[in-house]
């Protein structure tokens, strides 16, 4: 009974950790999912947008904390959200001047519809951002400091006086912010006029063009939103995870795994894909050595994709 109780405590702790990390991974994946769903472009630089969100938060948090009415506790999270609009502009311009040259209407007729050029281009952008980051930010690992990171709410488990689940306050708030941003985005995509435009452009670019939708503009906006959302997730991760300019590489693969798991083109699916990865990552530590927690992610990922190629929420659309 005692050993079971101990296991239950560890299990619940891992479950909570998985849910909290999963909520933020979910938001990251939503950012990528919007870009991928609307444009069908594989963007290797997505992890670097995450990194830029982290550094944005790091450098701006001081200014935000100095504002009246805002304590140093709330400032990092507000700053992370501010990284969204800031990086939206960056993503919008990046698409306008670079990405659009190898996507959308320009590449009709090129072999592989320009996918090859897109891969190289985004890889080039990733290299520039990472290494530019190294020059500007330096290689020392940084973190966004918040007093909440050292505080936890304790939830006693009723069956036993000593067993307690610790809820790190920084992570709880980060997860909540992530959920709120995700919900707002869900509303934007599914309810608003802009969202309809984006979905139409994604679903059938040609038909959308005939209906008077500027597909290239829709792509720019989607790219901007996707960049901004991932940057917000980056700022939130930065409150509990130290980072350096190459940190994006650690996350970009997780993001793609999440998006594929959820079913490409589904915003909700991308969120649950990210959540799944967070849970697998944390729960796998119960049965596997810590070094293998990322291997477990990829094993689960492959298993799901091979059994259900269209992901949790995707539709099988192949037609002969």
């Amino acid at each position: 009974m005692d050993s079971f109780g101990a296991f239950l405590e560890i299990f619940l702790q891992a479950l909570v950790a998985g849910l909290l990390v999963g909520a933020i991974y979910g938001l990251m994946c939503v950012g990528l999912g919007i870009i991928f769903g609307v444009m069908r472009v594989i963007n290797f630089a997505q992890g670097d947008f995450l990194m830029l969100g982290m550094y944005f938060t790091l450098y701006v948090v001081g200014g935000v904390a100095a504002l009246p009415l805002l304590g140093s506790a709330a400032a990092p999270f507000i700053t992370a959200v501010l990284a969204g609009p800031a990086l939206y502009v960056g993503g919008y311009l990046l698409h306008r001047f670079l990405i659009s040259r190898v996507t959308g209407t320009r590449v009709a007729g090129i072999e592989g519809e320009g996918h090859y050029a897109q891969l190289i281009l985004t890889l080039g952008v990733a290299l520039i951002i990472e290494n530019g980051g190294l020059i500007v930010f330096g290689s020392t690992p940084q973190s966004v400091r918040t007093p909440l990171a050292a505080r936890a709410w304790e939830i006693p488990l009723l069956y036993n006086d000593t067993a307690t689940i610790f809820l790190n306050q920084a992570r709880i708030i980060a997860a909540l912010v992530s959920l709120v941003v995700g919900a707002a985005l869900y509303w934007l995509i599914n309810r608003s006029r802009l969202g309809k435009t984006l979905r139409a452009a994604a679903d059938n670019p040609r038909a959308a063009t005939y209906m008077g939708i500027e597909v290239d503009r829709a792509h720019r906006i989607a790219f901007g939103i996707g960049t901004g959302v991932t940057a917000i997730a980056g700022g939130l991760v930065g409150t509990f995870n130290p980072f350096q300019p190459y940190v994006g590489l650690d996350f970009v693969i997780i993001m793609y795994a999440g998006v594929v798991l959820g079913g490409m083109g589904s915003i909700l699916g991308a969120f649950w894909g990210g959540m799944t990865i967070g849970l697998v990552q944390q729960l796998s530590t119960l049965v596997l050595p810590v070094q293998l927690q990322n291997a477990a992610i990829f094993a689960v990922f492959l298993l799901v994709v091979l059994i259900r190629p269209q992901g949790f929420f995707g539709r099988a659309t192949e037609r002969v």
Partner: protein
Amino acid sequence: MQSRGGLGVHLLIVAGLAVAWLGLGSLVSNSYYLLMMTLVPIWAVMGLSWNLLSGYTGLVSFGHAAFFGLGAYTVTIALVSFDVTPWLGIPMGMVVGAAAGAIIGYPTFRLRGHYFALSMLAYPMALLYVFEWLGYQEVPLPMKREAPGWYMQFSDYHLYIALAVALLVAALLVTLAVERSRFGMSLLAIKQNEPAAEAAGIDTLAWKMRAIMLSGGIAAAAGGLYAVVLLVVTPDSVFGMLTSAQALVVVLFGGVGTLWGPVIGAAVLIPLSETLQAQLGDKIPGIQGVVYGIAIIAVILLAPEGIYWRVRDRLARSRGSAAPAPALPVAPVIPLARPPAPAAERTSILRVSGLDKSFGGLRAVAEVSFEVQVGEILGIIGPNGAGKTTLFNLLNGFLRAGSGEITFEGRSLAGLKPNRICGLGVGRTFQVVRAFARMSILQNVVIGAYVATARGDEALVAAREALARVGLLERADAIAGSLTNKELRLMELARALAGRPRLLLMDEPLAGLGAVEVEDMIAVIRSISASGVTVVIIEHTMRAMMRLAGRLVVLDHGRILASGHPRDVTNDRSVVEAYLGTKWAAIRA
């Protein structure tokens, strides 16, 4: 997809390149440049490996580091733990790489497009963490001073260059052999239109498996040599994402699906990145990555399909050789060599009974039963959405029936893949023509001929014969992407005929044709039928159908509404109501 001619030229260039590289190497004594001159061929080999799978089949792999890393670790572990020389270790690594290709390929080929690409990424990443966990964080290769040559440890660095060049030459020769054979043609067909390749009798899964195993073996050889040259292996350096990325970057940069693309890419990019690293990397860390990134972006904006294609297009334009092929009139239908099959005994060639297929709640085909007699032309008509094309997809194996039976010449077709059904003698054309757009007419038809022939020259003969039958022989060298609708339909028909089918399924062969073209097509179909091929046609053009078909089957909402002689069927009240309309009835009356 370069021109097929000039094997001798390619071999000469390969030999010249190898000699030039070795000659250049012998002039260099700086150890740093010697290393660079070894790495260029190694990455070119890695690029060729990637190209063999992804360049030719179009299935982009983000996971080639898996094979590279397995090769590197096989060599390393064999040497460290079992004292096995890399001379054996590299071949062992190639076996491991090929086996990994089979294990990875079999499940992953179920996926297509981006799903395939991204799933491939997961394999090297999983392996990376597993190898770290196994305790192979950083494994140095031990020095073997007693017998350096036996352990591939040369004091003269030029020997490493020779080894790398030898590997590159081998990889180039393999690629050349693949490119010029049925193997390469099948891979290109898969890239351009996988369902069409499958329906034309190409066993797409088998060819893809061969491609990934060969590719895995070659990548493992590159990885093994890499370990020998660098003398230390870490999971990050061989399984890392940058290794996979490097493989695809050198190919995309140089030119996808070409023999020389990977070589060009490696020869430009590896020295560029190494030099930047050496010249700038220590002064401002990171600047080399920025410059490299800018460089590859600039080049890809100028040459989105890679340098090879860009240069080739330039050369073609300056030579003015892009003169359009003369538009030849379509040749008259050549009389058939084979005498028509004896029409005496009317036995059934295809028997369909109780066929059922549902998509979710929609019953696309419901309890369909009919027989096709040897030598007849059977027409299948019905309104849009009646289930006609679905029926064809069931017959040729694209779809699995929910229930019911299909027997062809007494043999059940249940569970067979399209290429097997094609091999048994069932040819097919599509409602929307599925061409291999970047191939010539002749190449398109040759692919259809593989299923019925064992050797390349036989396939060529069969293809020319089929082209003659539809009257396209004089246009044989035109590229499929440039054809008119009628030519495309005739080409697809020839592709189906080249497989020597005894039953031909034609899905709306007259769609989009003008009145005169319809007459030509009818004449071709009649002559095919006269040569003894049984024909089933889906068609909307009732007039043509009345003249062509000996019998009609009418489908509506997935069910057979009527069947029999065209005149009887078109007088059937229910058919008129469901499909033909009362206007038709008025004309007939």
